[in-house]
């Protein structure tokens, strides 16, 4: 049989549940680890970043107000969708990160398992992070975790899929919405993940994915007055300090970059980073 000419994919951003090109019309070349051309990715602009924040803010009320059970099922649904596309993601991760197929498959499997792990946290986090407080008086007193709001995430640069999932899932499972900047060098698995998210009953705008220059997109997100928190997982040390300083302008919660083995047990640190504690008082009496 003669070789059939394959159909290339036009990789696009994922903003507000839609798949737009960059409003700037710009793209950049994405290559594999040996420098061979893989595809063009959108070179998102500051305007795309702002549009993504608007979409994330719009989604926050509904997503944070959804029941924990509902959010857990949707995260589990993402795992199901990813599982079904295991072969595609294995090929994309292998190309993006220069991994042998078996190692790339292990990354995809770990990413699927990570969605499952975080899915289960949705209706448990309030029970480990909240408290009933025995105040010295006739008052009902309860502290509960609530989502911080819109979280801007600079995804890890080296782990294009597992690292990305490991920073998105812990933010959204508690009700936050996310604007994530994909690995600059290896954005294609992230842009394909958007297709799985779009078919997982995840409401539009809960996750927004941008590809482009991390430095170009990080600055407007760190300075944006309607972003509540910043995960600097994919920032280098020098830019992290600048972005943290910019984030101080509206007192964003900032998670600083640190070396992480993304294949290891993630623990609860990241999950608990983007929560606020609300304490409610009410008198008791008859």
């Amino acid at each position, binding site marked *: 049989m003669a070789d059939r000419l394959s159909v290339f994919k036009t990789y696009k951003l994922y903003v507000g549940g839609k798949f737009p090109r960059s409003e700037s019309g710009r793209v950049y070349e994405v290559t594999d680890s040996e420098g061979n051309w893989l595809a063009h990715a959108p070179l998102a602009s500051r305007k795309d970043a702002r549009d993504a924040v608007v979409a994330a803010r719009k989604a926050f009320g509904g997503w944070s107000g959804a029941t924990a059970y509902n959010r857990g099922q949707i995260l589990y649904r993402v795992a199901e969708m990813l599982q079904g596309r295991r072969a595609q993601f294995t090929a994309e991760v292998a190309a993006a990160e220069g991994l042998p197929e078996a190692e790339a498959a292990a990354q995809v499997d770990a990413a699927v398992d990570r969605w499952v792990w975080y899915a289960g946290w949705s209706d448990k986090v309030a029970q*480990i992070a909240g*408290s009933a*407080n*025995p*105040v*010295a*008086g006739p*008052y009902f*007193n309860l*502290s509960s975790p609530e989502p*911080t709001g819109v979280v801007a995430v600079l995804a890890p640069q080296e782990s294009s899929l597992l690292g990305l999932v490991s920073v998105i899932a812990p933010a959204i499972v508690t009700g936050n919405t996310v604007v994530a900047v994909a690995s600059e060098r290896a954005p294609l698995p992230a842009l394909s993940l958007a297709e799985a998210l779009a078919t997982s009953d995840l409401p539009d705008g809960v996750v927004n994915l941008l590809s482009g220059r991390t430095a170009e997109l990080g600055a407007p997100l760190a300075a944006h007055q309607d972003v*509540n928190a910043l995960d600097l997982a994919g920032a280098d*040390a020098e830019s*992290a*300090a*600048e972005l*943290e*300083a910019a*984030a*101080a*302008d*509206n*007192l964003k*919660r*900032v998670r*600083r970059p*640190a*070396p*992480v*083995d*993304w*294949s*290891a*047990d*993630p*623990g609860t*640190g*990241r999950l608990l980073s983007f929560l*606020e*504690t*609300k*304490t*409610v*008082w*009410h*008198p008791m009496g008859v």
Partner: protein
Amino acid sequence: MTFDASTPFTYAPAPESRAVVDIAPSYGLFIDGEFAPAAGGKVFKTVSPATEEVLSEVAQAETADVDRAVAAARKAFVTWSALPGAERAKYLFRIARIIQERSRELAVLETLDNGKPIRESRDADLPQVAAHFFYYAGWADKLEHAGYGPNPRPLGVAGQVIPWNFPLLMLAWKVAPALATGNTVVLKPAETTPLSALFFADICRQAGLPKGIVNILTGDGSTGAALVAHPDVNKVAFTGSTEVGKAIARTVAGTDKKVTLELGGKAANIVFDDAPLDQAVEGVVNGIFFNQGHVCCAGSRLLLQESVADEFLTALKRRMRTLRVGDPLDKNTDIGAINSAEQLARITALADAGEAEGAERWSPECALPESGYWFAPTLFTGVTQAHRIAREEIFGPVLSVLTFRTPEEAVAKANNTPYGLSAGIWTEKGSRMLWMANKLRAGVVWSNTFNKFDPTSPFGGYKESGHGREGGRHGLAAYLTPSTPKGEHHG
């Protein structure tokens, strides 16, 4: 004594005695267990805001003093953090007990230096101070059960900067959890209220606390800035203005320092038409006039449901006419002195802006003392969300009144602020209360009550009101590095 029917009640003065407190003419810095002058030899005066009387002269700490205090705290950290938790606990229990024993003295001192009514320093500040040490004392040997991993570790040297509105209580909120978790402390009290922290240094000596674990640096904003920026400080804890909080967040950017910030607020106190109005009036008065309104979580925006607005305002004004403004040491005083001339100027400027922007100003008739810093309890009606008095923290006895029709509108207006520290809800309908509490973006929600605090209850804000919590199990997180599971690293 004769009775005049036109003035049903008159009050004889009922001053608390000053004799219980002995203030020295001057104080040095408390570093490494000793009081010593500042390296630069500079001093400044602290005055009673009620009389402008000079109470004492304290040292102005500079960079060299900060270096010395941080070095002392670093040295003490080695032994203090290695001490079994049960032993640390016993020191904190001792401190709690000594505070209880000296509470009247400390209450009078606090009222003298701060200007707050003795009724509040005696019945609110001091009991909470002792309770806070008692509560965190009990955590010191139970940290492995606190939910921060099997072996949570202290961070090191904590640089703590506290405000002037609750001087000793803010010290307790900072020092108690820091010491319970094995950290050592360099604390800077506010420029206008240094005395109770210096008395606390004496309590540490009485408790036998080894030297260097608690160091007290008096000074101004430059002292605080030097402490926050010091490279050998591992943890920064600040309570104060959002403006300074942002500067601190910029200072620590790119470092490994852990930061908690308790900043400003513009809390909405929301009254529905089914609220028990008399209780709500008391709660609204307490919400804004407690501590002269020098409270970050003060209920400074009153949101009234339209159908009860007139009735409520009538009752509120009637109640405000009974507020007694004057000598803070008088046990019948409700509203004391504004803490400083600078703060009085800020309140005055914002209240004037309220008038200039078109809101209607009202205060009960009340004679204010001749000397000292005073501001009459003030109410603004006809306030819109665009007015400065609805947006900016006044930090004084000034209440801005807005109205709403539906719960949704109340939520939208309450959340229309960059702050998110506290909120109040007054309604008899439980389901509405819980719905409102859920929608309000604020760290503390008081329903059918206001301005309640407890050491077991986490306190802290959303958004630009800061981050981190003080109080409760949550308050430990600010001073601990969790045990590190495989793959997870903590900065």
